[in-house]
């Protein structure tokens, strides 16, 4: 099941070929229209404004022609004045409509983008750890920012641009045909030639753009990977190699960019030339009609109007040609956006999932088996019971599966076999939020937000008052150093983070968990970078807090777990030894060996 679902989302978003892609694009297009539905009224108004404004603008050259033929030629100054006044009113009207139209479209486009972003974000909130394991942060971010921006191009620029262009072309043709069908045909003479050129260029440039975008993507990947690990690059003295590596990726974009872009920029001169050629065709045919015989009803004013119209015909055609390429880019962006929106969460609440009531804390693992990838089992047949209020220590070599037991308990991942129950409730049968809400977890990898220390602690319980935050910090032995920070509790934790050591970050994370006041507590190497004196003090405080509640502690320092009610030794995904500290020492197995090695060390 999951394997099939995973297929829908392609990290890196390689663009598929052929029919499949076109179908996806058509689908994305329909769904985008769905987002526009809420703004139907406004869009109808702006559409009407657009059509009327385009028509008004097109009446201009015709009125100019009328002015020349009927009034200037007849020396009618009053008539000329009237028609110029009409012309002025018409232009002002067109301007007002265009401005209002532009404002509506800009606002709607931004609202739709915000909606898309918010939908993407809340979809991300529902996806499971498995999804985040296999998807690059950079790729997800680029979907929420760049790809939505591309969609904006489609909404606020291209889509309406094309609509406007088509309306303009059609109304131009109507007006021109009404005025004189022969000159209309004349103005269309260069179009087949131009269309041929444009389609050739378009066909050639699409794959070239694909190649260029891919090389750019490769460049970004190289830069992102190295820059985010820049401290390691410096520590290993590899800046020169990083330079070379980047220079190579950079160099490969040069020729590809030039090839793709050169073809595209040719569009502009061709379209510009089209307008000119149409004008010439009009002048040529018009003049030929005018001079042959009785003039065939072709006047100078008519030719003047047609010259303007023909020049205007090139403009919307140029816009269409220009935007077609970027529409494909925008649809590719929309595809990536909807692909992510369609990602089905691995872990969802059952329809009849109940709230997990406040628990006593009896945790039971029955024959639990689990693997991250199919061929590599991480947990095999894990069986244990934690009674309410007990402290369970998890000990074992790195990579044995200790953290995985925690990940399974708070349902970051669903197990493959067996069952995990809390107070008799199978964790898969209760709402996952009500489960996690009762588990306080301090993870191996400490993560803090770019925010003040105070807000980072308050993340544990959003409605906590300032005094409660300070109390939690005291409990975690963090109050002392926080007060010594430049701005105390209002110091901002920064990404570079030279203001906090790793150990201090762990203390803040513990304070955050303590503030949450959970029913069960999990400490996964939570104090590995904290000095032992501080650790001891924290432990005492936490023990007081956890009295009567179940806790799980993963630690390499045996001093951390020796007081545990039950110590589980995990090796290769199995529980190989279990018992209290004294029992395990007596057993003389892995644990005893580990403890003695520490002992031996002390004697040395």
């Amino acid at each position, binding site marked *: 099941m999951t394997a099939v679902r995973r297929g829908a989302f392609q990290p890196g978003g390689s663009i598929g070929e052929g029919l499949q892609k076109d179908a996806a694009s058509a689908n994305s297009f329909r769904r985008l229209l769905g987002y526009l539905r809420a703004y139907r009224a406004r869009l109808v108004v702006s559409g009407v404004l657009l059509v009327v404004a385009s028509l008004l603008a097109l009446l201009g050259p015709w009125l100019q022609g009328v002015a020349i033929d009927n009034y200037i030629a007849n020396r009618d100054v009053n008539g000329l004045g009237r028609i110029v006044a009409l012309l002025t009113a018409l232009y002002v009207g067109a301007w007002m409509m265009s401005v209002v139209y532009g404002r509506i479209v800009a606002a709607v486009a931004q609202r739709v983008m915000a909606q898309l972003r918010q939908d993407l974000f809340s979809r991300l909130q529902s996806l499971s750890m498995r999804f985040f394991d296999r998807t690059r942060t950079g790729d997800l971010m680029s979907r929420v920012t760049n790809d939505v921006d591309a969609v904006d191009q489609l909404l*606020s620029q291209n889509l309406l641009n094309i609509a406007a262009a088509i309306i303009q072309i059609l109304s131009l043709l109507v007006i021109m045909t009404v005025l004189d069908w022969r000159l209309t045909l004349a103005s269309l003479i260069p179009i087949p030639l131009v269309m041929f050129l444009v389609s050739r260029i378009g066909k050639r440039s699409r794959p070239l753009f694909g190649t260029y975008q891919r090389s750019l993507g490769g460049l970004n990947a190289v830069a992102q990977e190295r820059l985010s690990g820049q401290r390691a690059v410096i520590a290993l003295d590899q800046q020169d190699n990083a330079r070379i590596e980047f220079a190579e990726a950079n160099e490969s974009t040069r020729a590809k960019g030039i090839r793709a872009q050169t073809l595209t920029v040719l569009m502009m001169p061709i379209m510009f030339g089209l307008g000119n050629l149409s004008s010439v065709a009009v002048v040529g045919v018009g003049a030929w009609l005018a001079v042959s015989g009785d003039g065939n009803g072709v006047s100078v004013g008519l030719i003047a109007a047609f010259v303007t119209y023909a020049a205007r015909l090139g403009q919307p055609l140029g816009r269409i040609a220009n935007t077609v390429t970027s529409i494909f880019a925008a649809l590719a962006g929309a595809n990536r956006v909807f692909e992510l929106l369609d990602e089905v969460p691995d872990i969802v609440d059952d329809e009849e999932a109940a709230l997990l009531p406040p628990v006593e804390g009896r945790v039971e693992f029955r024959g639990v088996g689990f693997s*991250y990838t199919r061929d590599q089992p991480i947990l095999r047949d894990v069986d244990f019971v934690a009674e309410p209020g007990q402290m369970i220590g998890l000990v074992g070599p790195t990579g044995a599966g200790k953290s995985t037991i925690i990940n399974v308990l708070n349902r970051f991942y669903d197990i493959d076999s067996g069952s995990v129950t809390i107070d008799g409730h199978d964790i898969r049968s209760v709402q996952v939020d009500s489960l996690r809400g009762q588990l306080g977890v301090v993870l191996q990898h400490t993560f803090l937000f770019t925010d003040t220390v105070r807000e980072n602690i308050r993340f544990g319980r959003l409605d906590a008052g300032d005094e409660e935050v300070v109390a939690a910090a005291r409990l975690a032995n963090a109050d002392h150093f926080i007060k010594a920070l430049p701005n105390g509790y209002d110091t901002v934790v920064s990404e570079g983070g030279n203001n906090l050591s790793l150990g201090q970050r762990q203390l803040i994370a513990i304070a955050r968990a303590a503030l949450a006041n959970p029913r069960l507590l999990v400490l996964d190497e939570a104090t590995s970078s904290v000095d032992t004196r501080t650790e001891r003090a924290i432990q005492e405080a936490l023990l007081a807090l956890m009295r009567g509640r179940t806790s799980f502690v993963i630690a*390499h320092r045996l001093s951390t777990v020796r007081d545990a009610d039950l110590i589980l030794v995990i090796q290769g995904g199995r529980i190989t030894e279990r018992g209290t500290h004294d029992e395990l020492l007596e057993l003389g197995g892995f644990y005893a060996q580990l403890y003695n090695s520490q002992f031996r060390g002390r004697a040395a």
Partner: protein
Amino acid sequence: MKALLRIWPWVRPYRRFGLLAILGSFSSVLINLSIPLQTSRVIDEGILNDDPRLVRNVVITMVVLIIGGMVLSAFASAMAVQLAFNTVTDLRRDLYDHTQAFSFGNLDRLSSGEILTRLTSDITKVTMVLTMGLSFMAQTPVMFIGALLAIVAIDASLVVIVILMVPVIGIVVWYTLARSGALYDAVQTRLDRLNTVLQENIEGTEVVKSFVRQDHETTRFEVVADDLADQATIVNQLVAALMPTLILISSLGIAAVVWLGGNNVIGGSLSEGDLVAFISYMAMVAMPMMMFAFLQPIVSAAGASMARIEQVLLEEPEVPDAVHGIDVSIQPTPGSIEFRNVSFRYRPVDGAVIENALTDVNIKIEQGTTVAILGATGSGKSTLVNLIPRFYDVTRGVVLVGGVDVRELSKHSLRQNVGIALQQPRLFCGTVMENLRYARPTATDAAIFAAARTAQAHEFISAMPDGYESRIEQGGANLSGGQRQRISIARTLVVDPAILILDDSTSAVDLETEAHIQAALAAFTDRTVVLVAQRISTALGADEIIVLDEGCVCAHGTHDELLATSIIYQEIFRSQLGEPVG
């Protein structure tokens, strides 16, 4: 705008492309300018004189001219593309090169995300303006002036209309430009904020899920997304009004031409053909304005981007390389380290008062010894070891490696000499083998296996599905914390440094494995080892233990000496083993 001009040094090598582009545009504009004159000839001399031969000849001339203009203009565009892509490729290379001269202090201020945005989206904006802007900039003045001259030649009295139009257009454009510049900047800031919330949400997924804060996060994101949308709406609405307004001004100009010109025709001072030509020229006068309206957002955005790129280029590398750097490897004892009266303070952010991270530190470490550094959380242990490979420079005092001030050593030789496994190991995407070989691409397989064995990593790597060729996922997600640390240590060992620093780099490794690592390291008797440790068991085997407290060395000596003399050490010892000293 001004910032945009600073791209000149990168444009310079390709200026001949620019020149060709300008020449091409220039000639194509001249051709385009002549078209209405030809139209006027067809009307006045051809139609009014009933001269079909003249009509034919002029039309043929026009077609040839137009096609010539198209070719020239296409050529100019192609040259502009050459200029743009060559320029920005160089700029991007130089920008990245510059970031490689940064030290930790620079990275504290500039996040990787900030640098990356400049390398990608900011550079793209500059490319856009170079590709599209150049031909426009070459064409518009020529077109404007040429059309103006043509207008004067046709009927000087009508120039008044143009003269009235220009300042109005100028004011409209200036107003839009001035307002939108600041607004674009505001949009960019909102976008930064949105990116931060998003990135932290993804990187902190585990925390968000653990605390069931998805709704809180969604609300937070909704606020920044709405804020961005509102800000972008303001600037987009402003910009959306520019084009119709300019069209209005030029249309009104045309209406005025019809009125005044019409009166002139009625008065007999202007021919009908000239009036038609005049209207065409009016459109040409307005064209540069339209183009500017079209280009304005691109130019504004590129100006802001260039300023952001410059900000990185102007960031001074904090730890400059010595001019004639001494090679530390030829010193008699490259593995010796000495701190003399060293004080260090991080650079304050936003002017806050910051205390010394280290004060008056004096330490002497002989070649081949193992020294452990202990101390409370935040006592300055990492800061201390970061000064040895010169990740930061001291504020006062001097750090010597191999008996030489590190600031006089060549940075390259120093860092080859000092291997450090950082507190937070960072592995790269690629195979295990590629990661191990990273610091020394020429290392033999045997040397890599040996280093992996010493770091106690060989066994688990061999047990992975593809052994050394197994892929490491993003950030090492498919490895446990301890496995990442061991690969990181092995990677450092491959270089075979004279000084090895382990900055709490076995914190996630179990004790037994850690003991094996230490035992394996002890076999290299020439190597100086500096261990930053939380566990006393890590420090027990050291020749000397240094105890740090609030940035000062408060005690040093062997385990037994410290146990006898140092109260702090005794406390650490007790807390660690959980039983009274006895």
